[in-house]
């Protein structure tokens, strides 16, 4: 049997996505810091050593997380749209590739959260008739996202039927 491999999708997302991921990652680890601060005030015992140990571990992990995660995500996150299909690759530690034929697309949707607005980014979501497989492209430049949506919408209208 010939080896069949998929190549990566053609386009990377916007480089600013790294900043966005770093910022949301920082927000996540801040939640952990809040828990620690609470622990600091609730704990009545004299010894502060456990707090300091946990604090140092937090600092190290956060630093590694904020440096590694956005870079890794940026290298993984890719997308491609051809006249007949959409192809995405997402994740970092766990990765996922999704393919959907244009003919099976039901909705195309652009979303901008507060953080992505800050970096002029957008998330494009492509849904099919299956509840299992919406394709999401995070961290697209807003202009690129708009163009992609227009192209996909035009292509979808041209195709009849959605296999329900």
């Amino acid at each position, binding site marked *: 049997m010939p080896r*069949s*491999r998929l190549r990566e999708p053609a386009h990377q997302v916007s480089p600013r996505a790294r900043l966005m991921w770093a910022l949301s990652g920082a927000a996540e680890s801040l939640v952990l810091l809040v828990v620690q601060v609470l622990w600091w005030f609730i704990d009545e015992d004299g010894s502060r050593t456990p707090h300091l140990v946990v604090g140092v571990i937090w600092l190290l992990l956060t630093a590694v997380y904020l440096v590694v995660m956005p870079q890794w995500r940026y290298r993984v996150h890719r997308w491609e749209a051809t006249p007949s299909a959409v192809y995405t690759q997402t994740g970092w530690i*766990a990765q996922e590739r999704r393919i959907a034929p244009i003919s099976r697309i039901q909705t195309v949707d652009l979303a901008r959260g507060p953080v992505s607005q800050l970096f002029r980014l957008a998330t494009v979501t492509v849904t099919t008739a299956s509840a299992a497989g919406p394709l999401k492209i995070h961290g697209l430049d807003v202009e690129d996202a708009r163009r992609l949506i227009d192209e996909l919408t035009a292509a979808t209208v041209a195709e009849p039927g959605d296999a329900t």
Partner: protein
Amino acid sequence: MTEPWLGDRPPAVPPLLPLPPPGHATPPELRDVETDWRRLNPRMLLIHPVQEAIRFLPALAGVFILGRTSDSGGYWEYAALLAVIGLGLLRYFTTRFRIENGQIELRKGLVNKRVIATPADRVRTVDLTSPIFHRILGLAKVEIGTAGTGKDRLVLDALALPEARHLRDELIHRRNVVLATHDTDMPAPQGDPVDGLAPPPAGPTDADGRSTTVWSGPDTPGTETVLLTFDPRWVRFAPLTLTGVFSALAILGFGNQFLQRYLQQADLGSTVSSLTRHPIWIDVLVGLVGAAVLVSLLAIIGYVLQFWAFRLTRHSGGTLHVTRGLTTTRETSIEEKRLRGLEVGQPFGLRLARGGRLHAITTGLTKKEQERGSAWLVPSAPRTVVDRVAAAVLDDDEALHADLTPHGPAARRRRFTRAVVPALVLAAAAWVLIRTVDLPAWVGVVCLVPLVVSPFLAADRYAGLGHHLTARHLVVRQGTFVRRRDVLQRDGIIGWKIEQSFFQRRAGLAHVVATTAAGKQSYVAYDVPLDAGLALVREIDPGLFGQFAAR
């Protein structure tokens, strides 16, 4: 549109469409049909108030208790009861439906008026449900499922059973809805003639039920072939499935409230003290056996309630009909055109007892309906029965019985690490705790059980993994506690996912997920070698795969 009628008897509405003259072959299309606004069956006047009363039972009870305790001596409680009954009557008088220009329209509500319309050609499923009161009165609730996600469904609660069946046949088979009110030229119909629709099904009914002619439209008789009839001996499979046990627990939970009341009243103190004279393991044993017997009994009761008189038939118009239920009867119709495949399920207990069950993979059923069991084609039954029905429904013997391609040594290793490593960690943790903090030794023994079981579990899980591709179907199989062989139409696949965790990438494995609009929405080849998984995608969707293939 004029108001049709408000009394209890309809005036004889003349047919809006000229009936086809006898012998004329072309019936009017559904979209040309127009009916007057019609009400639900007047017998619902008996049911709606009861339903409303049950809905407002807590409030009513409150009012009545208040009425008893306060000495105002008023008739408030009766006024409240009347209001509730009135509300029920209003529901009847404010609900109307009609079929017009190929649309089914439902109008309801007094204050919040709502009109729900659905194009008849988007109807995917029509379910008839008759809870016990409906059954006594010969009524059925009609639930019309459309191509959407299930929110925009139409519920007609309720019509007379023959009328409901007839409406279903017309909608599902896209036959003509003929507006015959009382036409004597029709082939003699049995049962009540139905206003606004053609007469109910009639015709030669075979006593054995092997093949029955169903009257559907004046010129298109359909035949119904029986694929499966219920065998009471199947109830022995009921306690062997989690579904059975869960339904037992549901009944138990329901009964628990009553039980507790009696337990509190009965003086159990003496019985309990007499029990404690035996060694504890006897009590444990008796308790376990008692629980097993109780759960088995309840599982059987649940099975009987749900599947009694289960009957699967195929209509020549291209639908599968499922009828089932002891007190509440349900009739589900699945268009074979919408059938995307089958799931042959074997929960662990059924596998040991050589049993199985069969589900349809189909579009148009909501998640709730699937959980409620509308996609069942065979309830828990002997495997031979499951195989026979599967072969009758799906004309692809290879997909149902061919040996599957195993997922190879890497998948086997992954199954073993994933089963054994957590068990090892647990055992090690227990050992450390016994050494350090005097954990009782029997806890350690209990913690060893997963370690002993895990290799067998891993081996069985690996044995379950497999995939196969036939000319028309993708077959995947997995699972230990519920082993499932999913047979999915290649045409029904509408997208792909290739999922890889960090360890899967190192092992060269992937979960290859075929997404579909039907059934569970996605069917997965778990831990398939990446090359083999991608080969599946390439075989099924060469055009799609080719665009993104590495050169």
